[in-house]
């Protein structure tokens, strides 16, 4: 007798395997094209590709993504410097005062923004700065305008993108600390701040560092929240003392704008920028995974 059940099982398993391999084809193709086109673009203008400014179309010169690399680095660093301490502080509060009303409200509001359409975060930052400007004008009666298109507002937008993710991750890490460790810390007479900073954060550092690295790699690849905030610039702006209040470019904005252009040089530049961005994001990601694995081994 034919083993119908066994046959069906084999057929289905084979079908699943084929369906499972299917999604890898575009991803592998994407990798392949980014690497090939990117390396080609960079090799056409090496090492100028890394530090020059955007070329003029028709000049035959590919690249110059220097200002974009610096821009991404600045935006991401500022967002990280604001976002990481902020999310650690509120995550500590939420893990220490689980039943506090403030924690409950915070949980609802912050997780609202978790995995959220980032273009809205850009819009909201733009709106927030408008509100702040109105408040400054009305209540402080001084004529100061916070620039809407600036490094600062771009960083704020990125901070808000990374905050919910970090908050949820760090809070989970802290809440999963065994109660015995909490008792040990508090039995030594440590304040909540000291216990968290010297013991709990150290105890959970593996998973927290992983979350932070993944959060950084996330915001590094964000475009939409920067459209109305960082705005984009094709020049080096950091030589200007007030550059924090001026627009700045980023690798992602450059890929978006150059990729949509008709010029060969600019499209090649976009591929080169994509290659650099991919390299940056993935190396952070791989480091994060490595640390995570180490954390599990502990």
């Amino acid at each position, binding site marked *: 007798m034919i083993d119908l059940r066994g046959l069906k099982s084999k057929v289905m398993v084979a079908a699943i395997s084929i369906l499972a391999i299917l999604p890898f084809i575009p991803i592998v193709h994407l990798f392949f094209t980014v690497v090939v086109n990117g390396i080609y673009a960079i090799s056409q203008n090496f090492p100028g590709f890394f530090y020059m400014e955007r070329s003029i179309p028709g000049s035959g010169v590919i690249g110059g993504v220097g200002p974009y690399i610096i821009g991404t680095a600045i935006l991401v660093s500022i967002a990280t410097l604001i976002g990481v301490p902020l999310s650690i502080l509120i995550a500590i509060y939420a893990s220490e*005062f*689980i*039943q506090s009303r403030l924690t409950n409200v915070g949980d609802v509001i912050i997780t609202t923004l978790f995995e959220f359409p980032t273009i809205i975060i850009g819009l909201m930052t733009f709106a927030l700065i408008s509100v702040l400007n109105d408040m400054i004008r009305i209540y402080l009666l001084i004529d100061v305008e916070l620039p809407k298109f600036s490094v600062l507002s771009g960083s704020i937008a990125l901070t808000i993108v990374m905050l919910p993710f970090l908050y949820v991750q760090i809070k989970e890490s802290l809440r999963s600390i*065994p109660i*015995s*460790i*909490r*008792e*040990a*810390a*508090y*039995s*030594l*007479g*440590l*304040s909540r701040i*000291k216990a968290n900073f*010297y*013991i709990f954060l*150290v*105890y959970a*550092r593996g998973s927290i560092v992983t979350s932070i690295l993944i959060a950084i790699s996330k915001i590094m690849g964000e475009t939409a929240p920067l459209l109305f905030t960082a705005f984009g610039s094709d020049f080096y702006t950091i030589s200007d003392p007030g550059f924090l209040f001026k627009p700045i470019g980023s690798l992602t904005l450059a890929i978006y704008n150059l990729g949509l252009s008709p010029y060969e040089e600019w499209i090649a530049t976009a591929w080169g920028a994509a290659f650099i961005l991919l390299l940056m994001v993935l190396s952070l990601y791989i480091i994060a995974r490595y640390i995570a694995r180490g954390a599990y081994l*502990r």
Partner: protein
Amino acid sequence: MITIKDLNVWYRDNKILDNINLDVPRNVILTIMGPSGSGKSTLLRAINRLIEIYPGVRVEGEIYVDGVNVFKARTEDVRRNIGMVFQIPNPIPNMSIFDNVALGPKLNKLVKSESELRDIVKWALEKAYLWDEVKNRLKEPAAKLSGGQQQRLCIARALAMKPKVILMDEPTSNLDPVATNRIEELMVELKKIVTVVLVTHNPAQAARVSDYVAFLYKGRLVEVGSSSQIFTSPKNELTEKYITGRIG
């Protein structure tokens, strides 16, 4: 040394401890025993107010340690003067042996110099009978020690704060008999320098080490007395049933 007056503890709507009154003299071992769920751990954690890290707990009454009402003092100061050892050995696993012991003195700024810190750590480890075993591996993570060693490390950690009282919450329940034996010896030795409050559900252990015994049942303090009195002529029927193993 420790005086507990009219202590009541609730968790949400349940009363965990009901009107506890207790006196503990200086430099003795007092054992609180009772079946699980009787509130012994809660009573122990009330003394250094560790109970307050659990949300939903409400405490009423007074506890004096060395003449100070702990509920009027700062929590940090209270806990600093009272060492505690737990059921599960809980050194911070990814910190070194040295750092685990140094943690309290360092973070509470009890020492002025590095050398003073080293002296304290050495003293505490010696007192905990651990120094000889670890003196050459102080930089290794605490997680590498055996269970009994970890528990002695926790005792050293508590001692390093130079406390007047040490609370022990079933410190041997997760250890093998050999390690248990060593800890028990250590306790008797420790009472020369501190007052020990021990929680156990093992009457035999209570009989071996304690000077005084308190028997707790369903949140009430049933009987308090010297060790010999409780184990030879308990006044209460419940106490007798418990030490003879008929409830528990």
